[in-house]
């Protein structure tokens, strides 16, 4: 941490927001350590003006940014976790996550429209117990995919996850099989499935529904992989090259279709949905 250069942002643009700056406080970018204010972060669409680091956004922020105004209708809003293994401390962790995020679980699913195209959409929330997949996340994804088949709609999932939720043990591991099987049904029904891998997408989520889409979009700078970099280093002692497991690395190795900055994801989705609809030919 000592040889890391601390960068400073030119604050001239932000001068007029000085009041907001003072009241909301400054913080440093987790990627390049530049000092940023909350106001600047919002002004800049939630990424660092210096290094383009994409700050985490909540599931609802994601849905509002992607869907046409007032088009989203939430499904399974009240499906909530239980403690199937009576795992010590799990209820407390769930309650804390619910309080901190205002969410009941780590994913929001439903139906909405994007540029006028009707879609089934799901967005995971990394703030809810690291976006881990337990029974509820698995169930909501499967149910959303089954409804996509019922209504013959494309399915779009925004992924971010630390992996399986350990507190649910094998119930959580099996969600990988369950969601992958649901993707299989989407494919059989000939429906379009797009996954957007955002920072971070790792473990059981990457190794199941996230990597099984027709089109996989990685958000700029996102960490995407099966084993997280810390565990790789600890278990193998390997020194990881800079940029390892980042979106740009993955597209180079042929794992994703496109790398896009967050602000361009909506317009890209509209273009993809349009082409998949067959265009306007006679």
């Amino acid at each position, binding site marked *: 941490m000592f040889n890391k250069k601390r960068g400073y942002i030119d604050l001239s643009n932000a001068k007029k927001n000085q009041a907001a700056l003072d009241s909301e406080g400054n913080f440093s970018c987790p990627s390049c350590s530049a000092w940023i204010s909350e106001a600047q972060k919002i002004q800049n669409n939630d990424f660092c003006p210096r290094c383009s680091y994409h700050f985490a956004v909540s599931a609802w922020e994601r849905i509002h940014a992607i869907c046409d105004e007032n088009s989203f209708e939430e499904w399974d809003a009240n499906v909530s976790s239980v403690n199937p293994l009576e795992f010590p401390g799990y209820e407390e962790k769930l309650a804390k996550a619910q309080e901190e995020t205002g969410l009941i679980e780590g994913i929001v699913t439903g139906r909405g429209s994007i540029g006028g195209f009707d879609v089934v959409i799901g967005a995971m929330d990394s703030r809810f117990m690291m976006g881990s997949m337990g029974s509820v996340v698995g169930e909501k994804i499967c149910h959303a995919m089954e409804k996509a088949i019922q209504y013959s709609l494309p399915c779009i999932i925004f992924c971010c996850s630390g992996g399986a*939720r350990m507190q649910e043990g094998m119930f959580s591991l099996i969600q990988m099989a369950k969601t992958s099987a649901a993707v299989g049904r989407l494919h059989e029904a000939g429906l379009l499935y797009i996954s957007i891998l955002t920072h971070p997408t790792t473990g059981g989520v990457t190794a199941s529904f996230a990597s099984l889409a027709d089109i996989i979009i990685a958000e700029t700078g996102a960490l995407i992989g*099966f084993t997280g970099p810390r565990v790789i280093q600890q278990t193998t002692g390997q020194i990881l090259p800079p940029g390892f497991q980042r979106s740009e690395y993955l597209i180079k*190795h042929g794992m994703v279709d496109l790398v896009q900055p967050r602000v361009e994801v909506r317009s890209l989705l509209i273009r993809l949905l349009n082409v998949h609809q067959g265009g306007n030919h006679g």
Partner: protein
Amino acid sequence: MAKNKFEFEAPYLLLESKLDELRKLSVQLNTDFSAEIANIEKRLDQMREERYQHLTPWEQVLLARDVDRPTTKDYIKLLCSDFIELHGDRLYGDDPAIIGGIGIIDGRAVTVVGHQKGRDTKENINNNFGMPRPEGYRKAHRLLLEAEKFGRPVLTFINTPGADPGMGAEERGQAWAISEMLLCLSSLRVPVVSVVTGEGGSGGALALSVADRIIMLSNTVFSVASPETCASILLRDSKRADEMAASLKINAKSLYDMGIVDEVIEEPPRQYLLESTAFVQTLENSIKRHLDELCSLDVSELVELRYRRFRKIGKFNE
């Protein structure tokens, strides 16, 4: 004592060594103790078997990882009357951590795929301790599609600490290789039976376990992550893995009660795994019975039932 890997076995090993002494003594003194020795041996077996009924979850983890456990190759030799191993993923390489091929079981052609751990250090280094790399999963994937093409049922053997956590595996798409296996198995149009013969470690094990029937041997485990990993993440202390093994409910009996596995086959003490004809016979009969049942189903019904089998797993409030 090198053989004493399992603390709970210490008293029995001690008794065994005393019996050896007694045998030597009997020669030296030219006195026949054979009746007494046989008696104690019988009692010893009883004691050991009784102890095996009351193993703690952590002791079962140790047994599941026992390097002397029969491997996939041993089970194939035992169950298949003819087996031809097939190699390679046609893309990059041939991963020795997963083996596969075709053979005959009970007069029926089958495809067999399984994790392959080594029996000693040299073999384990070669087999990467049974931790598959993407090419292992892609070899399995290729063999599954081949099984489907020829209408052969699939038998898989599960015994891995997990998928390889190295840089090369990531570079070649470990997550993609595993998810493709989950997708492929979940809609494969031939019967799939899985037997957990040791460690069922995380996604790397699940990749071969999306089956119509999952059989677990009684002292094997299947876990979302190793107890050590869970302890280090959740308790910040990997030494409390034994606690985690209990909390995670990863042993065969718990998973049967949770409806995740379909059958548990009682194992004899670890020394007698392949020697016990009763155990081998039970395993063989169970596999044959499941294959008979599954092969009699209509293909679309088989696939639908497999979908529902996994679809219903999960606990939540609505």
